[in-house]
Structures are given as structure tokens and as C-alpha cells.
């Protein structure tokens, strides 16, 4: 079985895995980074989203072999309570999640989006987040939080 060394949250992590194994399972089962969640395995919902070289990527359809030397950042690597990312801070302040299982997708996608869009409009925020799923229906809070995060940044 091939061995892969990945750069995850600033650390080198090694995993023995089939080349076609999605990154999601390496992160969760081999590295113990539980924050990316399995939602669909089809890149339809975003629950597994991580940053790969700064871009929001669905780890459920990204094979470990394809990651190469790219820098992978998970929600746990995005910020901490002491040094929060603005989207995380805004998420807490707006009390966004209900069940919370979807939040990787929204937070990681919004964080990547705000990197390139400092003053987004309501419509731009919605378009940037289109396709992500939240079954509890927290969409109103999500929009409020991303706006709030944009104002902080």
C-alpha cells in the first residue's frame, strides 16, 4: 500500500492508503481530525470541506494521491478560540449552527471567499455559498455571520 506524506494544519502527516482513498478518511480516521464530516461522498453538500492551498475543496472526492505537497487546512487549523478566524468569531456571535454537522462547508468556503472579496454584497455572499447544504435551515444566521465577518476583516 503506498505511503503519502501530507501537509496538514502545518504539520507533516504520513498515511498508508490506497491511492484512490479520499482525503476525508485520512484526515478523520488516520489523523484524528474529526471536523471534516462525511455528508454525501459526492461533493454535493460541503460538510467535508477543507482548504487545499487556500481554496475550499471537498475532501470526500479528493484522493490522497492528488493532494501532493499542497497545504491542507481543516477547520481545526483555521483558528482557535484565542486566535479565531473572523468567520468563526462571527459564527459564535450570531449563534449560527443548530445541529452543526454542516459547518465545515460554510465556514471554510466563506473564509476562502472573504480572502478575495473584502466587501461582499448580500447577493455575492449567497452566490459564493450556493450549493452548500444546511438541513436545519440556519441560512439567515449564516448570511448574518458572513456579513459580520466581512466587517471584522
Amino acid at each position: 500500500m503506498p505511503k503519502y506524506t501530507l501537509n496538514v494544519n502545518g504539520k507533516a502527516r504520513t498515511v498508508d492508503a490506497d491511492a484512490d482513498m479520499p482525503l476525508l478518511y485520512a484526515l478523520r480516521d488516520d489523523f484524528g481530525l474529526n471536523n471534516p464530516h462525511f455528508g454525501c461522498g459526492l461533493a454535493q453538500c460541503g460538510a467535508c470541506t477543507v482548504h487545499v492551498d487556500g481554496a475550499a475543496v471537498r475532501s470526500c472526492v479528493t484522493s490522497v494521491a492528488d493532494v501532493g505537497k499542497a497545504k491542507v487546512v481543516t477547520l481545526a487549523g483555521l483558528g482557535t478560540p484565542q486566535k479565531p478566524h473572523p468567520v468563526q468569531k462571527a459564527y459564535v456571535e450570531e449563534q449560527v449552527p443548530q445541529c452543526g454537522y454542516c459547518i465545515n462547508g460554510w465556514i471554510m468556503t466563506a473564509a476562502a471567499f472573504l480572502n478575495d472579496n473584502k466587501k461582499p454584497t448580500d447577493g455575492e455572499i449567497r452566490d459564493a455559498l450556493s450549493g452548500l447544504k444546511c438541513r436545519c435551515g440556519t441560512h439567515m444566521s449564516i448570511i448574518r455571520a458572513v456579513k459580520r465577518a466581512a466587517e471584522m476583516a
Partner: protein
Amino acid sequence: MTKLDKAFSRRSFLKTGGMLVVSVGMPVTLDLVLGVNQALAQNARPPLAPDQLSSYIAINADGSVSAFFGKMDMGQGLFVAIGQMVAEELDVGFNRVKVIMGDTGTSVNQGGASGSTGVQLGGKQMRMAAAEARRVLVDMAAQKLSVPADQLSVVDGVVQSKDGAKKASYKDLIGGKYFNVPLEWNKQTGNALYAPGKAQPKNPSEHKVVGKPIPRQDIAPKVYAQENFNTDIRVPGMVHGRIIRPAVAGAVPVRVDESSIKGIKGARVVRDKDFIGVIADREWDAIKASQQLKIEWSDAKPPFFDSAELYNHIRNAPVRKRQDDKPVGDVAAAFKTAAKVIEAEYEWPFQSHACMGPACALVQIKDGNVTVWTGSQKPHFVANGVADTIGVPVDKVRAIWVPGPGSYGRNDADDAAADAAVLAKATGKPVRVQYMRDQGTGWDPKGPASIHRARAALDASGNVIAYEFISKGFSRVDVDTNGSKPAATLAGQLRGEPLAYVDGFGTPAESYTFANKLVGWETVAPLLDRGSPLRSAHLRDPVGPQIHFASESFMDEVASAVGADPVEFRLKYLKDPRDIAVVKAAAEKAGWKPRPSPNKANPGTGTVSGRGIAYSQRGGTVVAIVAEVDVDRTTGKIWARKFTVAHDCGQIINPDGLKHTIEGNIVQGTSRTLWEEVTFNAKGVTSVDWATYPILDITEAPESIECVLINRPDVAPSGAGEPSIRAVSAAIANAIFDATGVRIRRVPFSPDRVKAALA
């Protein structure tokens, strides 16, 4: 062990709380207080039983409070409200209370998450228990301080005399020990459990913590990736399991070629009658094994039909059971005298829970003891179901609820727990099962499909003299509201237990006073008697959205027929003052201008706007919703742009939590109205992922949701988890009619359907 498990276990409470000791029963006399001191030396512990105060409230060694709650929070912040109610009655700061939910090892069966009763019934019990704990503690302090109890007050967990000279803290009185105080239990378990003590709760006018918008404490840990979901629990030696479902519902495995997965490390087949699953050490290997395993299935006759035929099927199917509410007057006679009769029929499809992730469960069997980590909203019932499924006494099973990938009723979580139990028993290893997406959406229990026939008789002046409303559909409970019996889970059914369905539906919950009124329901048989992906069960506000989509759309149809404004029409017939108040409040806040629908000023082309109102009751709560929608007449696309919601659930415990709960209900209700429909063909369900079972996208989310929270501190709190989803569909349908003059009577209002209706 995970951090969650540690934090939530009573064992760890005892470790940090010091000796296991007891205070004594009531009334607390000097003798009994001396008894406390004697008990200090004994390691006796009251049983975890509904009639023990210790089953609900404990004062920890550091003086903080643990509240053991037999219901659980599905993401609406219920535990904050419970903490507020407990803190209020105990007179401690809110931050001193930790609510510990849903572990059968630490809490009694209060019914789990069920019917929006978290505060209404669960909170009522916790409030009474906390009040009793305070009474006992004050009595204990009275003895210790030699001050009569009625001359003592409590300030943040410290009992003190009026001059403040004498003090005894909860910590000093009982910290780290258990109450040994019996309660007056009504001998019921589940939602009906009630066990008050001798104390009366506070008068609402004294409330300081209840009613405050206290934030949730679980959000930061989630956002900073510090909290585990039940999908994240791992134990040593754990393997991964996956379940295999047939392509034709009802087919069973005839021959299994185990050699087809021999190249996958550690992969192994588990077959138990018609149940079939695989395990492997690594999750990806288990997934591959489940996909590669060659199975020859029985040649089952496809049990269904095309979902396009659904409503004809319901219309023509024999009625299994008919049940009417007590009729008012003589409807049949009144219709004979009618000057005009209005009739309409409405249709609602099967819908899926389609939770954010497919269900997951972990089962470990060790030394005869079974531990289940489950996302089911009813873990106490899951413990019963797992015990029966694998043949162990229930007292050997501990089910620990850990938040799962969403829950809005009886979803696939209970099935996953039973599946994991079968695999764990067969392999002797701890097994974690998570379904794949197509299983989560395709094979979860479904909200039932139905049709609804309504008719109204008008006199010559346009007054409603008779009203009849009959629903006909699949039962709401093909499988039970919980997985407490093997017949209620797929694993149980595939191992030989046929569906043990009962007939149940519902009737509109409103207070319209018509002189003659008949409302009732009829059920039809399930389409397959076991292992069915179309078995029905409770989905958020079970049968509420479908019934009230029809009944509140119909009220609008009658209003329009008599040329009445929809708000004025409702107010003319509504009886209950709280119902009248929410309708008025929603209309006023929305800036409702009286006129009949449709809006004749609207053009027949382009994008047109309309407003609609709908209202409903639910378990003591009343909600009125005004929807404002834009209809693109060219594409058929609906944007439910603005909602104004007036909500009265009696006393409000936490207005911030309530507002978030309402918003979630409105958005989820909009999704179910505009998009959601289970599709199927003769073989099985074909809506199996987010492409084939679409839900509302954020680009379609409303522009705003305004809430009018009507607080009635003197009315016991009722529920909020579901009531505001109930009238969403009708409010949208009524707004579409107002905008276009076209009545949509079938959910979902997908663009192609709306476009066809407008053509």
C-alpha cells in the same frame, strides 16, 4: 473513551464529586439531618429511577449543579432553556448549571426529543425537581443554622438569614453527595413522566434567569472543532461496518460470494437471515467491500409503482381506518341547504428527513455489557431495541446520545444503532456503522404522503354554514416513533419481524367556529410489509405541514370565493383569543392591507408579488405566518422573500433560542414546500442524494424573517420545536394565489409545476 463520554458520565461526576453519599428524605427534620451525617459514611446511592430527586439534580463537590435530562437537544438550544429553568428554581447563576442529556446511564426516560415537548414536559419536570431540591436544601440549612426555613433566602447557591449573618452554601450542605429524596412519580415513563416533590415552583413574576436571551455554550466548541459528533466516537479495537440494501425493495440475498471481497484487508461479511453487512478495519475498506461484494438477490416482484401514480393510488386504495374528531352540528344536512359549495383537494408527497449526514452508530459489547453511541433523539428507547435485537437484558445496555448529523424525528439513527448492534454481536468487535448518502436519503423512514379533501357550504350571504375536511394517506407510524422494538428497525425486519404498523394521521388544529364541522382522516396500507424504503414515520411536525397546507389553503379559497380579505375572513370565524392575537399580530407587523385575493392590480406577465397568511395551533402553541413571495411567471420560480411570524408558546424561556428555532422552521418549511419530494419507481426510491432530493439553496433563502414573540409569562410554556413549520406551506401557497390568481394544490411548488399551473 472520548472527551464527550467522560464529560457526560456520572462516573466522572462521582470521581470529581468525591464520596458517594446521600442526604435523606423529607420532611427534613433534625433526626433526618443527623441521618445525613451517618449516611456520609455509607456508600449508598439512590437508584436511577423516576421517583428519585437524584435522578434529575445533583450538587457537585464544587457547588455547581448537574441537571440530568432525559430529553435531548436537536440543535435548537433546548439545554440552555432547561439550564435556565433549573438555575431559576435553585437560585444559582446560570453558569453554575450543566445540563447532561440523553445518557441512559445518567438520566431517566423522559421521552427523548419528541413532539416539541422539551420545555413543555421535560422542562416542567426539571423545574419541579429543581424547586424541590431548593426546598430540601433550605430545610437542611434551617437545621444547620438553627433558623426557620421561612426566614432564609438563597442567593447564588448560598442559603442565608435575612441579615446575612448566617450562611450555608449548597456546596457545604450537600456538595458531592446525592439527594436521597423521593418524588411523587406518576408511574409513567417517556413524555408523560411527571414526578414533582413537595415544593411549588416560583411565581413567574419572580423570574430573573428565565426569559433572558442566554447564548448556547455548545456553539464555540463546534466552531473551533473541539466537540465530537457521534460520527467521531472511536473506541479501541473498533472496526467499520457498512450495510448493503437491495436494488429492488423486498429482495433478499440468496447467495453471497464472499470471495468477491477477499482482496480487501480484514473485510468480512455478516449475514443474519436477510440482513447483510460487511466490516473492515479501515473505513474506506468497508466502503469498498460493500460496493464490491457480489450478492445474488431473490427475484422479488417490484413492490411499488411510479411516483407519478402516487395520488391515484391513495385515492383508490381501500381505507384501513377512518377516524373523525367529534363532529359539530350536522354537516350532511347543512350541505343540503347550501346556496353554494366550495370544494378542493390537495396533495402532499412522501418526504425524507434527508439529514445532513446519513446516520451513524457505534456499538461495543464488552464483558456482557453493551454500549451504544447513537445520534437517535430517543436513546432510552434505542437501548430497549438493541437489547431485544441482540438478545440481552436491557439493564446490560447503556445508550449514550451524542449529537449526530441532524435529527428531525424518527430518522435513520435508530436503524443504524440496530445494524451496528447486529454487526458487533456477530463479530465480537466494536462496530461503527455509518450509512452512505443514498441509504440516508433513500432508506430513511419517510414522512407520509397524503391527499386532503375539503369542502365548505355557504349560505346566500356568503357565510360558512358547514365545513368538512378529510385527509387520506399513509399512516404516520408504519414504524414506531422510536427504535424500541425490532419490528421498528430495518435490522429487525430483515431478521424476521414484519412491520408492526398502526394507523395514525391527524386533523387540523384550529379554532374556527362553523356551525357544522366534520374533520377526520383515513389511512391506507403500507406498500411493503418489511424492509421498505417507503415505510413512514415521524418527520418534523408529523403530518402537520401536510394537513395545514390543505386546511389553511382552503380557508383562503373560501375567503376568495366570498370576496373577503384573508385576515378578516379568519378573524370572523376564529374563537380562541390567543389565535386571534397571533393572526392580528402577524398582519400588523407585516403591514397587511385588507383586500381580497388575488391582487387584481398584478400584471399577467413578468415577476409578480403577493402576500398570504396562514395560522395553526400545535400542542398549546399558536403561530400565524405572513409570507410575501415573488413569482417569476416566465420560469415558474418562487422566491419566498419575506416571512412575518407571530408566535405564542406561553411563557418564553429564551427569546434568542426561540427566534433561531423559528427561523430554522421557516427555512426548512420553505424547503419542504418548494422542493422536497421523494420520487420512486416500481423497484425503489430514486431520490437518493442532494441532486435527486433537492432542498432550498441559500440563494433562495428569504430576504428576512421577522418574528413577533408573544410572551405570556403566566401561561405554562408549550413547545416551539415544530409549531412554526406547520403553516409555512399554506402561507406560501396563499401568497402565490394572491400574486397570480392561480391556486397550487400540490407540494412541492417546483418551477416546472408552477410554470405548468400558470400556463
